[in-house]
Every structure is written in structure tokens, then in C-alpha cells.
């Protein structure tokens, strides 16, 4: 048993007795005799776990112009109404540290306000032919460890809080290594690149209630300079970058002890923009009756180059999955066995506006379970159903999972659905491609379903391919092909095995076949957990992903395959030694780069001959 051994080993780890005694002595000296004091409010049993349904008695309030009226959500007129809603649902926190108050303070740093982006310096070798982060929706960038603009490679090492800029090419060089450390903040492992700006974000470790965003200007690659800083309440749910607008979604939870009636900033989201603090206006807040505790989902749009907040909104409701297209943000929230979805529109300028609310049965696996197409929103969910099973002399109720696909219109009203797909299984991966949706369910056998969505009101399952194992992520690969990466499984026992890559022929969605597959040498790859770890490009005919082998000594590799004549052909297997993860592949022009926390390899993209290797 792991637990026993782990506990046993730790029980041997103890502080030195002398040190213990020293601390105990100092405690006894300083320990204040307990004194009587009175709490602000009477202490009653803390309500444990029960869902609280907030009834907003302020009546049926119209929502601001342009938005639809909705009986379930309410738009508070002022802070007092918000206060009441928050107070009612706020639970006691275990974590109030009085002297480290929930105050938004700005971290120190050197700021230089740059007016606009500066043009690139003379010796321009920017190559427009380069890869970008593997994202869900084209035009909607997602944060990642590595970014490139075709001339430089930007790499983040979050363990050491350093940011490295490497000049790409056959003889790559490290141009700078910047320390991004901010006291009491914890750097996230991903960033954005937009023109001459790089965006980083951090968790506030002290209060766990703030997210700090730092924008650096990198026009001088030898000397990146911080130019803007934002602090938003809550901790990161997700982020996106569309054009020069950075969207930050956070979950902001409020504990009972934090709330002061006279101080709106204790129960309303706040944000700090280059040292200017604002409290969100009641106009920008909506209260949903669906929440277990007091928490907001806060969405802000920031202009990266100007350093301004373009738009800010908050929904008093927890979110568990977010989807973002170029024009809409969908927030999904759990409501018992259903999911409530909210649509916020986003304009080209970055203005966010609430639009509508809808409901679907079941829960969503991740962002890929949601898709927007031609003003329709499609969802694939897994739901738990209670089923009564009759036996000879008795009956029993069992819970069975089943899967569904829903099509909602732009008002999030259901127009079409297919339910009870593959009972007993759950969704493992989803990919929507225009009029067709593909998704994988798994228990032992992996049906890859194809759904025809050409008529939104009548979605139809047109194919189900049964194969052992499952795919965690599906990627389109040119015309008529779908690439999947996941794991193999034993057909009889269902025991999950090694990493498996598959190429599906989807030229006829009603008759999908697994044209090729390859089972790898171990069962762990970062690509099983995030789509960003997979490099896939049909034009270059290359697929890249990391693999980790734990059989003797932990060793990680980066695998490169191309797809030729219906077969996977291994082009490279690069050994990165003892590194756990954070491998990424990208290309610029003729070179393919593979980068880890401390090494950069450069290969020729045609024959994968090694061109260079540097330590970074």
C-alpha cells in the first residue's frame, strides 16, 4: 500500500528535539493568557455542505439594455442587494489571517510606461512561417509555456520564475533571462505573446484571493521591461487572448468573516489597473440563484498595449468549465445533475456583455465539450442516471452514466438533442468539426461516435467505431482525417495500457475507420492531460508529443511522427533525460525546435538531422 509506506517514511522525518524545545519555550513565554472577548455575531453551528438556494426577493429586475430578460438571474440595483445575496450564502472560512488582510496591494516592480509598440530592430529575420500554440479555436489564443513570433522563442520556467528569450535559427542564442519573481506571488506556468508584449500571471499566495497580471515589453530582447500590472480578485479559472485583448476569468470566493456591510470591496469584485483601484459597479454584476457558496466568476478584458481595463463583468456563481470563441464566452456551472450555461458576448473591441442562460443535462468534460458554430452552441455531456433494475424477486436502483449531445440556439434554448448514448460509459474526448461532431466514450471498448449536426434540430448519430482503449484528445488532420492521442486498453479486462496514437479516416463520417495506430513504450504523456502539449500540423505533415518512461530511471522524450501512406512514421525520438514534463515542439521556417526547462534542440524540419543544441 502506498499510503502505509508513505506514512511510515514520513514518520521518520521529525524536527530536531532541541529546536522543538526552543519553539515551545518561546511559545510559553509569549503565550497570552486567554481573555474574554466577544465575537461580532453569535456563533452557531456552521452550515455544512448543504446547497443553499438563494431566493432573490428584490423582484424581477430588468437587465441592462441589449440583454435579454431572464427570470432566473437577477441584476442588482445597488451594493446593498449584492451584500444581502453574498451574506446569505457565504460560509465560514477556516483561513482568515487577521493581520494578512484580504487587501489588494500592488507588488513592487519597475514600471516604464511605453506609449505603443515599437517596431522591430533592423536585422529582421522574422519568419512568418512558424507554428503557434495548439488551441481549440483559431484566432483565440491560449496561454502556454512556450511562444514564438518567428524570430525569437520565448520560454517560461515557472519553477525558477525565469523567462528566457532565445534567438531562433541554426545557431540559436540566449538573448536574456529575466527573473520574474514577485514576493508572495506564485508564477503560473503559461504566458501570452502579442506583438512586442508578453503577459504573465501569478497567484497571490498569501491570501489566495488575487491574480496578478504582469505585461512586459520585449522590443529589446536583451532587456524585457515590465510596463503594466493588473490585479484581479479571485484565482485563475482560465485566460484567452484575442487580438490585443487579454481576457482573464477568475473564481472569487468570499468567506463569511470577510464581509463588512459598509465596505463593498469586501464582497464585490475589485481590480487594480496600474495602481488604480476600482470596485466593480453593481451594473456589471448578475446574481444567479445557482450556487453552493458565495463565489463570483469575474471576467475582465484588458488592453495589453494600453494597459487599460476595457470591460469587466461578474456573475455570482461558480464556474467549472469555460469555452471561448471569437465572439462569445460560455460559462458552465453545476446545478445538481445538470449544467447551467451562460453566454456572454465579446465584441471586437473587447466589450463583454451578458446575453442568455440555458440548461443541459449532465456535466462537461472540458472546453472541447463545447462548440459554437453558425450561431448554434453544441455540447456533449456525461450524466448520471438512476436506473431501476428488476431482478427475479427484487429490484435495485443503480446509477448508470450516459452521454448526450445538445444543440442550443443563441438564446441558449434547446433546439436539438441526442440522449442516452453509450450507457455505462463516459466521455473521454470530443472534437466538433463544423457539421459533424466526434466524441469518444470509454469503459472498456472505445466507441468513437460521429454525429451529424447539419440540421441543428435533429442531430443524428451516424457512426460508432468500436476500438480498444480511448483517445483523450482529438485533432483534425487535413481533409478526412482525425488524429487521436490517448491510451490503449485490454479488450477483455479493460486494463488501461500504454499511450496510443490513432489516425481515423473520417472521409465518410458514417463509416469511420481506424486507419493506423501506434502503441508507445510507456503509459504517460503530458499530451494525455493537455492539448497544448501536442504539436500537430498537416501542412508540414508532423505530429509531435512528449513521452515519459518510468521503467527504470525517469526519462522523457519528445516523439515526432509523420503520416505517410496510411502509416505513422517515426521521424525522431529526442531524449531529454531526467525531466518530468514541460516539453514543447514548434517550428520556424526550416527548423524544428524542441524545448525543455533547460535544453533547446534544433532539427532540420525535412530530414530531422540535428542542427544545434543549447543549454538555456
Amino acid at each position: 500500500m502506498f499510503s502505509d509506506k508513505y506514512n511510515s517514511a514520513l514518520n521518520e522525518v521529525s524536527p530536531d528535539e532541541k529546536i522543538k524545545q526552543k519553539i515551545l519555550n518561546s511559545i510559553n513565554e509569549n503565550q497570552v493568557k486567554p481573555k474574554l472577548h466577544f465575537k461580532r455575531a453569535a456563533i452557531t453551528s456552521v452550515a455544512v455542505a448543504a446547497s443553499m438556494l438563494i431566493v432573490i426577493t428584490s423582484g424581477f429586475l430588468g437587465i441592462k439594455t441589449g440583454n435579454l430578460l431572464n427570470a432566473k438571474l437577477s441584476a442588482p440595483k445597488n451594493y446593498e442587494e449584492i451584500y444581502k445575496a453574498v451574506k446569505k450564502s457565504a460560509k465560514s472560512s477556516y483561513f482568515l489571517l487577521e493581520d494578512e488582510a484580504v487587501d489588494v496591494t500592488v507588488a513592487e516592480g519597475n514600471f516604464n510606461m511605453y506609449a505603443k509598440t515599437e517596431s522591430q530592430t533592423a536585422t529582421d529575420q522574422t519568419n512568418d512561417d512558424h507554428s503557434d500554440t495548439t488551441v481549440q479555436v483559431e484566432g483565440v489564443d491560449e496561454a502556454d509555456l512556450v511562444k514564438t513570433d518567428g524570430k525569437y522563442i520565448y520560454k517560461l520556467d515557472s519553477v525558477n520564475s525565469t523567462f528566457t528569450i532565445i534567438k531562433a535559427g541554426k545557431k540559436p542564442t540566449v538573448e536574456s533571462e529575466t527573473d520574474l519573481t514577485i514576493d508572495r506571488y506564485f508564477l503560473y506556468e503559461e504566458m501570452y505573446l502579442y506583438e512586442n508584449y508578453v503577459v504573465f500571471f501569478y497567484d497571490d499566495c498569501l491570501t489566495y484571493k488575487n491574480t496578478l497580471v504582469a505585461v512586459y515589453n520585449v522590443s529589446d530582447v536583451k532587456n524585457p521591461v515590465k510596463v503594466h500590472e493588473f490585479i484581479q480578485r479571485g484565482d485563475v479559472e482560465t485566460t484567452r487572448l484575442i487580438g490585443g485583448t487579454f481576457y482573464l476569468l477568475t473564481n472569487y470566493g468570499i468567506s463569511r468573516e470577510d464581509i463588512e456591510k459598509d465596505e463593498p470591496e469586501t464582497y464585490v469584485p475589485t481590480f487594480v489597473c496600474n495602481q488604480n483601484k476600482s470596485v466593480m459597479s453593481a451594473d456589471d454584476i448578475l446574481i444567479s440563484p445557482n450556487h453552493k457558496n458565495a463565489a463570483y466568476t469575474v471576467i475582465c478584458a484588458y488592453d495589453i498595449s494600453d494597459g487599460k481595463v476595457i470591460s469587466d463583468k461578474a456573475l455570482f456563481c461558480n464556474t467549472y468549465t469555460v469555452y471561448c470563441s471569437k465572439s462569445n464566452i460560455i460559462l458552465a456551472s453545476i446545478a445538481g445533475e445538470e449544467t447551467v450555461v451562460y453566454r456572454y458576448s465579446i465584441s471586437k473591441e473587447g466589450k463583454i456583455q451578458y446575453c442568455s442562460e440555458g440548461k443541459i443535462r449532465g456535466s462537461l468534460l472540458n472546453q472541447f465539450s463545447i462548440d459554437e458554430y453558425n450561431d448554434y452552441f453544441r455540447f456533449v455531456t456525461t450524466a448520471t442516471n438512476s436506473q431501476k433494475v428488476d431482478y427475479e424477486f427484487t429490484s435495485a436502483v443503480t446509477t448508470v452514466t450516459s452521454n448526450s449531445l445538445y444543440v442550443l440556439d443563441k438564446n441558449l434554448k434547446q433546439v436539438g438533442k441526442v440522449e442516452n448514448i453509450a450507457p455505462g460509459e463516459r466521455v473521454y474526448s470530443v472534437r466538433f468539426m463544423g457539421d459533424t461532431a466526434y466524441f469518444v466514450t470509454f469503459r472498456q471498448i472505445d466507441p468513437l461516435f460521429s454525429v451529424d449536426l447539419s440540421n441543428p434540430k435533429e442531430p443524428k448519430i451516424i457512426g460508432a467505431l468500436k476500438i480498444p482503449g480511448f483517445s483523450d484528445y482529438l485533432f483534425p488532420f487535413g481533409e478526412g482525417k482525425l488524429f487521436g492521442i490517448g491510451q490503449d486498453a485490454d479488450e477483455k479486462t479493460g486494463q488501461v495500457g500504454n499511450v496510443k496514437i490513432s489516425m481515423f479516416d473520417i472521409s465518410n463520417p458514417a463509416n469511420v475507420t481506424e486507419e493506423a495506430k501506434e502503441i508507445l513504450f510507456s503509459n504517460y504523456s503530458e499530451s494525455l492531460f493537455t492539448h497544448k502539449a501536442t504539436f500537430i500540423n498537416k501542412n508540414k505533415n508532423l505530429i509531435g508529443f512528449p513521452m515519459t518512461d518510468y521503467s527504470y530511471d525517469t526519462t522523457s522524450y519528445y516523439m515526432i511522427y509523420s503520416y505517410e501512406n496510411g502509416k505513422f512514421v517515426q521521424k525522431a525520438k529526442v531524449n531529454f533525460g531526467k525531466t518530468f514534463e514541460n516539453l514543447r515542439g514548434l517550428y520556424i521556417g526550416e527548423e524544428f525546435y524542441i524545448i525543455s526547462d533547460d535544453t533547446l534542440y534544433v532539427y532540420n524540419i525535412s530530414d530531422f538531422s540535428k542542427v544545434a543544441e543549447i543549454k538555456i
Partner: protein
Amino acid sequence: MSNKAIGTVLEAAMPANAFEKYANTVYRLAFVRTKNKADSDDILQEVFLRYMKVYEKMESEEHVKAMLLRITVNCSNSLKTSFWQKKTEPLDEKLQSEDEITDTYVLQQVLNLPLKYRTVIHLHYYCGYSVEEIANLQNSNPSTIKTQLARARATLKKTIKADDL
């Protein structure tokens, strides 16, 4: 659940009592996070210093433990420790072959995990917290914690065969 009357301080929350009971617990979490005994000693001291400021507010035994662990996580984020070094303090035993999965080997595998993962493994398997409780402790999303725990387990499974991973 509150089990004290208004206006008094919980017996179990008194710093000396809390120290007797939880010094080792705090130390071990600090050790798993920093991988360094010297830093863990410093953190042990710092944690109880901070705890002295809030002990009067403790409402129950569970509250005391959770508060101490929360402070420990905070302190072991601090840049004042040598925490940012990747070096692990070598444990006394040499690495065993994979046939002999000793306690030390298991601990070593956990310490090899990245910070976030070994923290959730520790809070789950040593402190006995559930996903929800761990999320609460770090003011994180339960789904984030679930993912971290799943990934950590998946990684550990490669070198440790165990039913409870």
C-alpha cells in the same frame, strides 16, 4: 462545528497544546514542500509564530489543524527559504532496485514530483484530506485539485505498484 462558548478560547487551540499535537504534522508538510530540513525547521518556527496571532479565533480541533497547514503552505511559498533550488536533500538510504519498494523509496518518488503534485499527494495520503478539503485549504477549485491528484497518482504508479494509487 463550533464546540466552544462565546468569549473563550478553545483549549486545543492554545499554542502550546497545538504545538504538542501538530509540530510534526507541520514539519512534515514543510519538508515535503521544501525537501530541506533546515528550511523546515525555520518554517516550523514561523508557522507557530503566525499561529500565535490567530489562535484565539479557532473554533474547533479541525480548524486548528487546517489553519496550521494553511499557514505552512503559505510559509513554504516564501522566497526567504532556499526552496527555489531544485536540489533534494539526499535521504539516508541508497536507491533500492524496483523489486524492493521501501518506505524511503516511496518518499523519494513523492519528493521527485513537482511542488503542486507532491503537496496534494501529501495532503491526501498523509493528512487525510479529501479533494474538497484540499481545494478549501488552498482556495483552489476542486477540479484543479482533482486533476493534480490524478496526474500525481498516474506518475507515481509508474514506479510504485499499489492498489491505493
